[in-house]
């Protein structure tokens, strides 16, 4: 399927957006409805270190322990609906038939048992791993050592043929240049790495995934720029961290949204991936359901928008937790409880028609906590979305427009007496970003010509990976 770029906003204004409702709701799995008037908890998990020893130890860990624990707890605390997410480990993509197939089959069989017995709405997202190495080759036929590009596609097929309800991936295209950009504080390199190269990789990958999903009647969910924008965000970190300026992270998030959007432009329907904090921008543009994570994912990582990012979610996730024992049960049971009660609050608010009040409470607690939170507040996310659809001529145009819009929003707000405050490093970095972005050429062709020369020595960067 060809890529069809978004050229208009699906929402008429930002206030239309609220959690638990999408313009294009979905029905799938075992009675699951997403974006159809309620929020669903999405529980994610990681096996213990030795679980990948052989196919049987891995199956047992995922099915007999993790999935069973989740389903037991979901019924025990009366959750009406749960989505599971299995983020596949390396063994499952490296040898899909031996390691992946029994897990996918086993999880679904157990879910069917609980659905049949209790009527609980259930579904599972399988997020295939992307171990492709740019130094070996990102496209088929290039990686003679591992054949990772071919294995990614095979892993998608195995997941879809054996029980996935939703297919996702955290794809890695452009990461080598994005990592260089973060380490060197170079926003133009980021724009090239994620806004352009990452976009080309998505354009190659996602039509194939959509096709596999269609053939197997599986929902093509979406992607996330976890490998890029989340690296920025985590390195920018909290108030004691001094590695990456949070204004840099905020602008990278805006750029990342233009790349992640391509999954939906290739025919995926959502829900996108929980760790794609760019979700509010995507939802504003496309009206598709979005999975998000915040305060109930502190088992996995810390962010500065734990409440805000719940504002327009359709699935609410814990990101991931290693399977182990806690006082209150296994870790997946404890974090499902945490998610389930938060979602119950959201859904009660919806029933009482107080959802937009709760949305604004979530958003306002963190609106000024960091520049990245500020640009993802739903009103600002909407403005960035508008900039993207108004500049849909090329990947470069819209990524640059998203970046400049985010940077300008931050700068304008920080100049006001109350509201968003910036540290000296954040302010200096932001000024540099705006200067650098404004120095770039007008056309994509000129930009790419310049960037290929400027970044040709970036370690492991090979234009052939992107068909260049």
């Amino acid at each position, binding site marked *: 399927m060809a890529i069809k770029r978004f050229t208009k906003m699906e929402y008429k204004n930002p206030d239309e957006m609220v959690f638990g409702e999408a313009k294009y709701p979905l029905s799938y799995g075992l009675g699951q409805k997403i974006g159809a008037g309620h929020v669903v908890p999405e529980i994610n998990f990681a096996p213990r270190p030795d679980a990948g020893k052989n196919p049987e130890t891995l199956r047992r860990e995922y099915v007999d322990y993790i999935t069973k624990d989740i389903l037991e707890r979901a019924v025990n605390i009366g959750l009406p609906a749960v989505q599971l997410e299995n983020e596949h480990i390396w063994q499952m993509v490296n040898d899909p038939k031996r390691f992946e197939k029994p897990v996918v089959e086993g999880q679904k069989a157990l879910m069917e048992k609980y659905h049949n017995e209790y009527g609980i709405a259930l579904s599972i997202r399988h997020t295939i791993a992307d171990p492709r190495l740019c130094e070996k080759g990102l496209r088929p036929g290039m990686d003679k050592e591992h054949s990772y590009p071919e294995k990614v596609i095979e892993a998608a097929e195995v997941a879809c043929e054996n029980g996935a309800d939703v297919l996702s991936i955290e794809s890695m295209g452009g990461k080598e240049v994005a990592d260089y950009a973060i380490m060197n*504080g170079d926003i133009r390199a980021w724009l090239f790495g994620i806004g352009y190269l990452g976009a080309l990789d998505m354009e190659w990958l996602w039509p194939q995934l959509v096709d596999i999903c269609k053939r197997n009647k599986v929902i093509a969910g979406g992607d996330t720029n976890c490998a890029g924008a989340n690296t920025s965000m985590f390195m920018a970190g909290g108030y004691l961290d001094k590695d990456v300026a949070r204004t840099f992270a905020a602008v990278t998030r805006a750029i990342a949204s233009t790349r992640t959007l391509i999954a939906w432009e290739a025919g995926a329907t959502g829900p996108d991936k929980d760790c794609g904090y760019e979700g509010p921008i995507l939802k504003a543009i496309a009206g598709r359901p979005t999975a998000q994570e915040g305060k109930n994912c502190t088992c996995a990582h810390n962010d500065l928008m734990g409440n805000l990012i719940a504002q327009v979610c359709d699935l609410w996730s814990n990101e991931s937790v290693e399977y182990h024992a806690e006082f209150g049960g296994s870790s997946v049971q404890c974090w499902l409880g945490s998610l389930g009660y938060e979602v119950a609050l959201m859904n009660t608010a919806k029933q009482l028609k107080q959802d937009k009040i709760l949305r604004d409470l979530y958003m*306002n607690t963190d609106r000024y906590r960091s520049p990245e939170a500020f640009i993802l507040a739903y009103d600002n996310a909407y403005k960035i979305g508008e900039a993207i659809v108004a500049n849909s001529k090329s990947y470069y145009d819209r990524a640059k427009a998203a970046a400049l819009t985010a940077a300008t929003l931050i700068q304008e707000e920080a100049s006001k007496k109350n509201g968003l405050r910036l540290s000296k490093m954040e302010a200096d970095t932001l000024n540099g970003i705006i200067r650098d972005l404004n120095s770039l050429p007008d056309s994509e062709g000129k930009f790419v010509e310049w960037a290929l020369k400027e970044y040709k020595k970036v370690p492991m960067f090979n234009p052939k990976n992107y068909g260049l």
Partner: protein
Amino acid sequence: MLDTSNVNYDEIFVRYDIVSESKEKPETIAAKMLPKDPLLKKVAEDVLYMKWKDIEASVKEALAKYKPEEVIDKGLVKGMDVVGELYGRGIYYLPHVMLAAKAMELGVKEAEKKMTTAMVTKGTVVMHVAEGDPHDIGKNIAAVLLRSNGYSVVDMGRDVPVDDVVNKVVETSPHMVTGTALMTTTMAAFPKIAERLLEKGVELPFVCAGGAVNRAYVESFPLGVFAEKAMQGPTLAAKAVEGWDYKKIRSKWDELMSGKA
């Protein structure tokens, strides 16, 4: 949207980074640490202020008066010392360190051209990312920091099989080996590496780090030494070169990380 005009955000969160922001300027701190000699000072300042385009010329000028080893130790290294100080105080961020390290590397290469014998490094570190794991930004940052602190780095890259790591350690006899992993299942390679190194009679600190890696796990197998951040690499390497074994590093880990050992 709710009217929030009466909200006092100071009661909701505190920007401790702004509260504790250093008022000192890099120049003030640098003035106390930079060499006095104008030629060496210029070399050090080119590192400090990341002037990687100027540094080769500055090094050439200094080499007219000083030996290459002196230009490195009293110019380039002094500049990098100030960078480390500014980074430690939160005045410099990671990109400053990376660009300063780039300047330093270019300066060292220029100085090396005048050396009659090969440059002696402080020690050798073999680095890798675990098999099945493509996340290498932490390893790459640590490698830059180790190199700019005078260590020789054998960078094996990412997704490196256990046997390849073991063979490389046997082949190069480094002072320290490092492994990084983002995921719980990929870090399972670390105890295997430690076990096979011991089978071959090789004992050295094996520094493990990364997203899912924690101290308890790393200290559950022989040789393992935990690192929380890339900037801890040079401290651990220094102790490895001094001859501290993994048990001693573990026992003094808290003091080392707080700069008290």
